């Protein structure tokens, strides 16, 4: 047994090294900047809706950030950042339409920040320009559309409109990696003498051990909806949290038996104290956990970002010096299964979740497009991702073999000025720029983090439905009328099933209620949208 463990750990070390060595080089698209500067002869000021309040805690104005100071000098355009309060981004975005105060451009996440009648309607109703008509102002952006066919397909709607300038996720090599996934405390695992869990049964053992031997308050931490938003943990059951597809057929998770089985398991875990007791009243609806819980060793496992693996929480104030968090692949029912659902949003189709949209009645449409287009050229996106050119040796350094840039890990996480990693991100480079270079995040990170990224991307996400399927205005009106109520109801019932306030014996009548609320019509509409997308 001992020898076996020895071999296993050797294999692990090897795998880790392989993991970091196997990183193919980034294919930098659009090497030349086709824009000419300054964009405007006279200094102009434009409004940019910029939902990055999370970064504002330490930096009160993005105009103080190094990158934006440089970019303002270059373009001769001053940006007035409009930052909605954290957590109110969606509401704030819908209010833009009701007010007469549309900013010149908005850097939005269309999945959650939307016009009620859909993206096409926002163009038809005259709020935003149809970017497809303005591509001549955006030569750099055009290069991306020509380079990645999947990306081009995703950028247009069924009717050939383009909502705005979509963000790019520039992968390392051919396949983009997931940047978030299931994470577990390795130091806890070592203490209870268990391996990283693979099947759901393994998970049960491990969580019980966390509870019994270590007295962990929340062996498994879930979001306030009981299930994780991205469906990582349920993937092994062969379902997705909401809509997903099986070979082109749209399905809705809660209508499937496997989903019920998953809830049955969670209910059992809840009864036995393996879940966070407070999950239903947590404020977080997505990834990562309550800070106090994390720092005080109350959480055994959770869905987390790759940048927080290893001992990163110690720099955030965790007191346990042994702190060690590792990434885990999605659990499976029995060994050898391949879970196929993964909705990590960023990365699929080379597209990231952000999109820059432009006010159709704006005074400076051309200038704004050209300002944004700059971000799509290598000279600018490198600086947006790694820090200014002049910061070589400070925020980034050149790789020995081919000179490509690598973020300086220590500068970010053990900053000489004592700045927090979140502040460094916005002070020296920019958060989620329009072109995100994947290697900026992954290459500089620790081997254990890289291994996390690899594990989370282990299975091909064949059940995922592109965010970029679109509906017509009429379909969209009908869909949102029905589905808004359904989703709230599902989220509420998930919690009740898990906490036992609703009995799983009543699952059939629950499904009947969903039918009466119109879920079948919603599936039909999603199906039609998916068919059109596949036919594009």
């Amino acid at each position: 047994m001992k020898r076996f463990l020895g071999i296993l750990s050797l294999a692990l070390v090897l795998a880790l090294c392989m993991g970091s060595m196997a990183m193919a080089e980034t294919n930098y698209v659009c090497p030349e900047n086709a824009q000419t500067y300054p964009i405007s002869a006279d200094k102009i000021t434009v409004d940019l809706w910029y939902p990055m309040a999370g970064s504002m805690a330490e930096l009160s104005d993005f105009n103080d950030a190094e990158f934006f100071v440089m970019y303002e000098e270059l373009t001769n355009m001053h940006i007035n950042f409009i930052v909605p309060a954290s957590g109110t981004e969606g509401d704030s975005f819908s209010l833009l339409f009701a007010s007469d105060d549309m900013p010149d451009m908005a850097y939005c996440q269309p999945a959650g920040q939307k016009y009620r009648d859909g993206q096409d309607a926002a163009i038809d109703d005259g709020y935003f320009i149809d970017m497809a008509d303005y591509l001549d102002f955006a030569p750099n952006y055009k290069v991306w559309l020509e380079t990645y066919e999947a990306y081009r397909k995703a950028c247009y709607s069924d009717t050939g409109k383009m909502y705005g300038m979509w963000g790019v996720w520039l992968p390392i090599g051919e396949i983009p990696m997931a940047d978030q996934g299931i994470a577990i405390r390795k130091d806890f695992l070592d203490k209870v003498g268990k391996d990283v869990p693979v099947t759901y049964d393994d998970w049960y053992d491990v969580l019980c051990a966390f509870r019994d031997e270590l007295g962990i308050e929340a062996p498994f931490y879930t979001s306030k909806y009981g299930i994780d938003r991205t469906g990582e943990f349920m993937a092994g059951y062969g379902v997705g949290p909401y809509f997903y597809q099986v070979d082109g057929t749209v399905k809705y998770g809660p209508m499937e038996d496997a989903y019920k089985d998953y809830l049955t398991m969670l209910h059992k875990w809840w009864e036995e104290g393996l879940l966070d007791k407070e999950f239903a009243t947590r404020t977080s609806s997505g990834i990562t956990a309550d800070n106090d819980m994390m720092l005080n060793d109350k959480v055994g496992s959770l869905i987390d970002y790759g940048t927080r693996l290893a001992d990163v929480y110690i720099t955030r104030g965790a007191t346990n010096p042994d702190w060690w968090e590792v990434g885990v692949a999605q659990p499976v029912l029995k060994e050898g299964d391949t879970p196929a659902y993964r909705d990590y949003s960023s990365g699929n189709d080379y597209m990231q979740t952000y999109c820059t949209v432009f006010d159709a009645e704006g005074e400076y449409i051309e200038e704004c497009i050209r300002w944004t287009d700059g971000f799509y050229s290598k000279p600018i996106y490198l600086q947006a991702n790694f820090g200014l050119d002049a910061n070589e040796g400070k925020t980034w350094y050149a790789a020995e073999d081919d000179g490509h840039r690598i973020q300086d890990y220590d500068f970010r996480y053990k900053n000489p000025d004592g700045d927090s990693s979140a502040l460094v991100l916005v002070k020296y480079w920019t958060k989620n720029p329009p072109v995100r270079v994947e290697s900026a995040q992954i290459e500089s990170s620790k081997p254990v983090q890289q291994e996390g990224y690899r594990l989370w991307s282990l299975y091909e996400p064949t059940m995922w439905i592109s965010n970029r399927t679109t509906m017509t205005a009429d379909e969209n009106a009908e869909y949102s009328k029905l589905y808004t109520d359904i989703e709230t109801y599902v989220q509420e019932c998930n919690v009740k099933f898990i906490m036992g306030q609703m009995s799983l014996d009543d699952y059939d009548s629950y499904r009947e209620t969903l039918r009466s609320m119109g879920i079948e019509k919603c599936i039909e509409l999603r199906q039609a949208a998916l068919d059109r997308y596949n036919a594009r």
Partner: protein
Amino acid sequence: MQSTGSAPNIVTSAERIRARRKKAIRRDLRLNWAVYVMAIPVVVYFFIFYYIPMGGIVMAFENFKIRKGILGSEWIWFQNFIDFFNSVYFWRLIRNTILISVYGLIYSFPFPIIFALCLNEVRSRKFKKVTQTISYMPYFISIVVVVSILNDFCKSGGILTQIAALFGDTKGALISRPEWFRSLYIGSNIWQHLGYNSIIYISALASVDQELYEAAYIDGAGRWRQTLHVTIPGILPTIVILLIMRLGQMMNVGYEKTILMYSPATYETADIISSYVYRVGIGDANYSYSTAVDLFNSIINFLILYVANRVSRSLSDISLW
């Protein structure tokens, strides 16, 4: 008319009356102009902030599109109302709204009165003032803070949860259990508003004629009898008016506290009409539907107020109009 000097000889009686009325109005304006000037801001305020927005009610009968505006949107009559009546949430919202306000009324209405009566019996002026001041304090705490205190007390391991456990309730965090929601909501309301709401009763008590007490004392009434037969009848009109006004607010449970306190786990008892309107209107930008729901709410409110006023007028001659 005479003052103009050129009045016709025959004036019909109707004209004469009109002329006289005109004169009276002019006279009134001349005498009381200052009062009218003072009233202008109030009238303007009500007109701008209460009457003009009422035009927005039209949205409830339309499929409102922001771009088309109120005048241009498609007219769909009662479809929004029909959708609401058929919604799975309809009965639950009605039930929760009514229950939370009925319980709120039953439990929280008497407390300020009792508190005022107790204070009235206190002899020491100093003690009275200190108690009163302390009881006002919670009123000035932001509701956000009150709810976070509540959250802290009611999470698993929180003090209220532990107290409940002492009495045999060991099912965990009170804040995430639907059966506790109303008690926590109303209980914290009572704590927060007790002192402030009692002010009006305390001032009503001060205006009760002292001679009545003396007369009652001479007739041999003790303190309890005096309270029963002098104090309470003395402040009864105030109580009834406040009760009627409170009834008019019956369905108007504010959404602020609810959306701060609830979670999917407690929607069952916590979700009320106004929080639903907030979610649908602001969250989903479904303006016409949420206007329809809110209009429905206001109509019910008005009906309750009307009935309460009628009942009160026929029973006790005390009424709002």
